């Protein structure tokens, strides 16, 4: 049995959903044009993951195994719609920037994966810790990717000009192909660090 702190840290480092498991890459690549978008998407996914893990864990044993997948999807879709409506009402700028990728959190395999692989077999407490670990890992990855792409693509980070006028922004990094390149480089760096630090 893994300890509760291991449950938490594995989501951030050893099993980071983006850098280690390469899960849910569609929003990872699509919305990380800027640091704030990456961070917002990460938080939205974290919220959905947390809620779905709690509910899935609560109803474990009640839902017949053969209909668990449709049940999970119903639960996840409900929380995603709530996030969509709440963002639209209270954070319209972010809602517009994330666009279609909010509804698409429904099919984010990280969330489905945690429900299936963890929450349905574990207590509510452990499921919450798991969701927090995975969600924070996901948010960190998206934010880092967003920062890198924003600096290279626009010369700013979180909207603050940091490179000065001498730097000519590379528009490539603000576009989808740049997302692949930036993610590739980050995967290299992250995996190198993990190997060096001996997390494997």
């Amino acid at each position, binding site marked *: 049995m893994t300890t509760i702190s291991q449950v938490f840290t594995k989501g951030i480092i050893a099993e980071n959903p983006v850098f280690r498991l390469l899960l849910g890459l569609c929003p990872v690549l699509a919305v990380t*044009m800027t640091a704030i978008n990456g961070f917002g998407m990460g938080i939205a996914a974290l919220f959905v993951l947390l809620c779905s893990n709690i509910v899935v864990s609560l*109803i474990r044993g*009640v*839902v*017949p195994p*053969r*209909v668990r997948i*449709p*049940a999970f999807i*119903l*639960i996840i*879709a*409900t929380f995603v*719609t*709530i996030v969509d*409506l*709440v963002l*639209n*009402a*209270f954070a*319209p700028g972010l809602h*517009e920037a994330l666009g279609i990728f909010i509804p698409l959190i429904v099919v984010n395999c990280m969330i489905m994966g945690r429900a299936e692989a963890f929450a349905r077999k574990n207590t509510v407490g452990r499921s919450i810790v798991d969701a927090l670990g995975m969600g924070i890992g996901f948010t960190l990855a998206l934010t880092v990717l967003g920062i890198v792409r924003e600096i290279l*693509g626009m010369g700013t980070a979180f909207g603050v000009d940091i490179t000065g006028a001498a730097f000519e922004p590379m*528009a490539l990094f*603000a*576009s989808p192909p740049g997302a692949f390149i930036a993610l590739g480089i980050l995967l290299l760096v992250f995996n190198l660090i993990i190997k060096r630090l001996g997390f494997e």
Partner: protein
Amino acid sequence: MRDSLKMALTLLVIGAVCGGLLSVVNAITQPIIEKRSIEDLREAMGDFFPEMDAVEEREIDGEMYYEIFDAGGDFIGVVGEVTASGYGDEPIRYNLAVDSDGEVVGLRIDSHTETPGIGDIIEKEDFQSDIIGLSFDDPIALDQDVDTVSGATVTMRGMVSSIRRVVDTIGMEFLGLEVEVVEIDPADVDDGTYTGTGSGFADDVTVEVTVSGGEITDIVVVEHNDTQSYFEQAEAEMPGRIIEAQSLEVDTVTDATASSEGIIEAVNDALN
């Protein structure tokens, strides 16, 4: 049997709880969302016309136009809540403000899916300052009074032709201005079939006009990119009206004004 019943019931209960939760959240957020979008528009209209006091709505060809009046009840301009088709999947939604003299006084891009770093040029100062100050009598065309930006041709073309159309609509529907049509007498035109284009609602309209014995005998629409349900109303009426009158000074079809104007312009172009 008992198993299937249990499965169905479980899903039913989960579905019902989820549905109930969503309707609560929707009831809370819906008024806020609606209020905000109206506020956004009002704010934009207030920026365009600081002396705005009252607003009257009017729908033309499926788009909303807002007539703006000042505190004295005088008409000061119109704001259109309109769309253009660009390079992205979604139309470019924008607001265009035209004052009572037919001059563009404001442009605000509401939402678009143009390529970041390329098509989003329409949000930049350079493009906006190109557009603001143009008026009904100007060509409002690429390379004439609006600079083309290389790499963003599709976005620019869609945007500029849409602005031309909106300025035309506002000019004709609200300001009583008229597009000058150089009237062609079919009697002066040699027999034959001629092709011409005009600008419709979304994009160019192309027609083939047949002239025989000094009379327009047939008008066929070859190509258009307008919304079918609107365009077909224009397509059904306009050729008949023009042939009957043997003139381009015919009434346009209500609800399909831009498409109708497009057909008239295209016939005019063909005969020239």
